[in-house]
Each structure stands twice: as C-alpha cells, then as structure tokens.
C-alpha cells in the first residue's frame, strides 16, 4: 500500500454504555484512506458506518462512550487531542456533512452568516474577508445567484441547494478530509446525482480525501475509489469499486448486491432479500456475525474470530469460505 495515508484507523472499537447493556457498535475496524482518495462505507442501518465516521471527529459523547484503538488523521492522533486542539482539528483538518441539511443548518441564521461565523472562528479574519470567502465557496459548490442565496435562510432553499450550502459550510476552512454521512439519502434521485458529481469534482480540484457513508450502493459506485462493506461493526470486505462490484467474495456483499433492483424488474419478479435481521449489537454471536443469515455458513463459521483474508492487491474479505464464494451460488451449497 502507498505510504501516503491521510486516515489510518487501527483496531477501532466503540462501545456505548457499559455492563450488560453495552452496545458494541464498532468491533475492530481497520481502515486506510490515502490522500485524494474517496472511500465509501456501505452497509445496513446499525452496521457501525456512521459511528466509525463520527469517531474520526470524536463526536461521540465522551461520558457514555468507550473508544479503543488508534485513529490518525493527517498526522493528528485524534483520540488523544486536547479539547482546544480538537476544536482546531475539527473544521480545519477534517469536517463533515450531514444527512439532512435542513436539520444540520441552524434555522435562525442565514446560511451566509453560518459560513461566515465558521470562517471567522477558525481564521480570525474580518467579516468582509469572510464574506468574500463565503461567496467564493457558494460559487464553488455551484449555487446559482450566490450573492442572494447567502442571505437566504435554510427553509427558503430547496433540498439540493441546502446540501450544496452544507458542503460549502464544511469546506469553509479548507479541510483536507471531508466526511459525508449519507449526504444524498434525504434528496430526490435527480438531485442525488448532482450532489455526487459535485463531491467528485470537489475532491479532484481540491485534492480532498472523502469518507462517505451510504447504504445506497449506486451512490458509492458513483463517487468512491474504494468500498468498505460493514456488517455488525466490522469491515467484512474491502476493495476497489470494480472488484467489489464485479467479484465480491464475502457472502454479505454478494447478498447486498443481489438485493438491488437492476434496471427494471419483470412483473411478478421478486427482489432478492437477505433473510433474517442484523444481530443485536449488545450480544453478538461468537464467530462470524453474518453466519446466521449466510447461505455458505458452516459450523466452523460459528466459532472463534474470523480473520481478514487478503484476496489479492487491496482486496480482502472477513470470511472462512472465500474458497467457494467466488463460485456462482447454487442451491447445492450446504448450509
């Protein structure tokens, strides 16, 4: 792998609460993101994607959360930053865009004011300079008639426009890393693709590294260089987009890809689904967390810890059955 990793997560564990009620949201995530790369974390709800993302900014309430492991972002050891260093780190090195821009923008201030405030806080420049910078940002994220839009309140903008404003706000202090928590989920399909293209373009022109959480595989394919599939707080498969899409090796990834609607479904044809439900994170089963729902699972899958198996250059899967998972799935495979 390249030396130039901007994000290095090692054995990240995040536990909410304690004792018998402890929820093990993330169980040993290791992830590298190289400079200028876009990585998509995909998975079901509750698979630990957003928790992993938020850990990168240490956004979890410290009293109720136990975080173990090691996170380095652009040379900063995130988990041991002092609170003032953390304030500087957030926004300047690494910033985040949220799922629902209407909720993530303060309703009583105009979007321009919010961007200006963030710039002034970090750069300590005059209001006029900050205004100029805000205008530049609005042009950069392609908001039409940016002067007028800066004065608008969040509720006066359309969903796509709000998300653009949110991106502008996140880019206010020239971060190197942009975290996106399902940035297109709340938007309609035509706007989604515009936002994804915008992210892609910003990533190229500004040299950003993006970590992108989504459960929309289509969106991940559109913007990501690499995809990491998460299940029950672990990365179960990781590889570049093409490999994951064409030759997935983990049964969960395979099932996930099959459960998408390809083009149009014939009348009466059912969408493939994954039977069962994700495990309760408060009491994970031993062995592979996906085993109870897996059509390939054997007894050996239900004990011990499952190691990540390398499957060639930058492709790995956390599965003991990778020897058969690349074969076309047939009913004869014993369960």
């Amino acid at each position: 792998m390249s030396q130039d990793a901007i994000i290095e997560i090692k054995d990240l564990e995040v536990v909410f609460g304690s004792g018998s009620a402890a929820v093990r949201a993330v169980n040993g995530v290791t992830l590298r993101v190289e400079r200028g790369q876009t990585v998509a974390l995909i998975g079901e709800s509750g698979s630990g994607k957003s928790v992993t993302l938020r850990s990168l900014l240490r956004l979890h309430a410290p009293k109720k959360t136990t975080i173990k492991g090691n996170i380095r972002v652009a040379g900063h050891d995130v988990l041991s930053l002092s609170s003032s260093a953390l304030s500087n780190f957030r926004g300047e090195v690494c910033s985040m865009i949220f799922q629902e821009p209407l909720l993530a923008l303060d309703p009583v201030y105009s979007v321009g004011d919010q961007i200006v405030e963030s710039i002034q806080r970090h750069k300590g420049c005059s209001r006029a300079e900050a205004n100029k910078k805000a205008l530049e940002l609005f042009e950069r994220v392609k908001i039409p008639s940016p002067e007028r839009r800066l004065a608008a309140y969040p509720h006066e903008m359309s969903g796509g426009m709000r998300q653009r404003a949110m991106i502008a706000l996140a880019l206010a202090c020239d971060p190197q890393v942009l975290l996106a928590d399902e940035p297109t989920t709340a938007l309609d399909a035509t706007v989604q693709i515009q936002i994804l293209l915008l992210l892609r373009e910003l990533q190229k022109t500004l040299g950003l590294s993006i970590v992108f959480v989504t459960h929309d595989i289509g969106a991940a394919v559109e913007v990501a260089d690499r995809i990491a599939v998460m299940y029950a707080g672990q990365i179960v498969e990781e590889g570049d987009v093409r490999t994951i899409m064409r030759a997935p090796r983990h049964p969960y990834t395979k099932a996930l890809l099959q459960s998408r609607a390809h083009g149009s479904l014939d009348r009466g044809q059912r969408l493939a689904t994954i039977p069962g439900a994700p495990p309760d994170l408060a009491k994970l089963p031993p062995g592979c967390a996906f085993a109870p729902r897996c059509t390939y699972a054997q007894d050996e899958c239900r004990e011990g810890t499952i190691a990540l198996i390398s499957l060639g250059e930058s492709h790995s899967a956390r599965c003991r059955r990778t020897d058969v998972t690349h074969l076309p799935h047939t009913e004869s495979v014993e369960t």
Partner: protein
Amino acid sequence: MNASLSIPAASVAAIEQSPGYWSGVFKRFLRDRVAMIAAVVVLVLVLLALFGTYVTPADPYQSSMLKRLKPIGTEGFLLGTDELGRDMMSRLMVGARLSLFMGITPVLFAFLIGSVIGIIAGYTGGWLNTAIMRTVDVFYAFPSVLLAIALSGALGAGIGNALISLTLVFIPPICRVAESVTAQVRSRDYVEAARASGANAFAIIKTHVLGNVLGPIFVYATSLIAVSMILASGLSFLGLGVKPPEPEWGLMLNTLRTAIYTQPWIAALPGLMIFITSISFNMLSDGLRSAMDVKQ
C-alpha cells in the same frame, strides 16, 4: 460596525443588506390582525403609564366628600368617582404606570435570571442539571399565588418586596422552559454540525443555543406579564404591595369592593383594565410566537 464594512465590493454589500431574521418576524407580525390590535392596546397602555399623569382630566388624588360614587357619565367625571370622590378616569390612567411596572419588571428579571440558570442546566445535563432542576421543582410545587403571598408576607409589605417576591415566583417556570428548549436544541443536528466544524461549548451556546432558545423563552415570558399583573394586583389587594392612596388597579379593586352594591360598574372598572391588559399581552405573545416560527 467595524471598518471592514466599508470595503467596496458589490457582492459583499449584498450580504450586508440581507433582511435579518427579525425583520422577517416583524413583517409576519404586521400581517397578524389580532396581534396588531393587541400591540396597539399595549402601546396605548405603555403611553398611559409613561405620560398618564400629564393628560388626566382631573387630579387623581383630589377627593371630595360630596361627589362620592357618582355613576359613569356624570358631568365632569366621565367614568364616575370612587368611594372618596376621586375621578375614576384619572385614577385608572395613572394606575397604568404602577400596574404595568408591577407586571413587567418581575418578569424581566425572572427572564434574565431564569434563562441563564435554565440554559446552563439544559446544556450541561448530568448531575448539575438534576441538582438545579430539582431545586427549581421545589419552588414550582407551590401554587404561584400562595408562593407570592408567602414570600411577600415574609419580606414585609412594600413595592420593592412585592417585586422581589414576584421575581422569585417567576424564575422557576421560566427556568423550566429554558431548560427544556435548551435540551432539545442541544441534540439538534446543527449543534452537532457546529461541533464537527470546531465550535467549542461557549461558541455553541452563544450562537446556536441562544439564537434558538431566547425566542421561545421570550414568548413564554410575555405571557407571564399578565399573570404577574394579576398577582401584583392580588398582593396590593391584600395590602402587601402598593399602599393607598397610590392608584394601582389591584388596590383600587380592593378599596372599591365596598361599593359593589351601590355602583357595581365603577367597582368593576379596575378589574376590566386588568382584564384588557392581560388579554392584550397574551394575544401579543401568541402573535409573537407565530411570527417567530420560521418554518411557516
């Protein structure tokens, strides 16, 4: 405000000219007819309170044994006279000053103190929240009239002590509103977004919490003005607030109660003023509430 504003950039100027949040609120408020009527009534009352002494038709303190309890519409006494023959109209006009003062001042102080306590409790959470809010609950458990009378009685009669006791009565409810709104705002995405962009607790409280919390607390406090006036009148009625011969509506209600069988309309007039004032303040706060709701 600072020198940087003079930088001649057309686009920057456009941002400066943006209509603020409050001008939007004001515009919506102007369109609300009921609230506008209430605002006009309140304005008239405030003007009476400020300048009432200069425009009274007669001396409000001048009593006359011969002209006691004249009915409404008597020559020279438009609204009649009270039990000591003083002009009711003049007394009601001058009475606006003390009554409004007793209504607004305690709420204002309680607003300042209660907001600070409530925002601190709501934002920090944890044991500090529990400690503050349970203490507040102890006060809140008393009926407000009882608490006001008890505090006033303990402190002794007089306007100053009545103001202190009313302020103490209103801190707990304002504190509770402030706490609950702050706790709501604290968990909003934009607060998390602000944290993600590097804002510390102080910056978050200053912009996001205050910006979103003061409006609702203010509206709630406005509705307390009416309650405060009624309580203040009650204290005066019991002899714990304003002392005769000062004209104050609650006190007037008290002294006129002996005339309820001979001149019921005159005896009811101070009560009518209290009613009009309190309902106007309530309508005003309702109008403010809907005008401040940005998501209409």
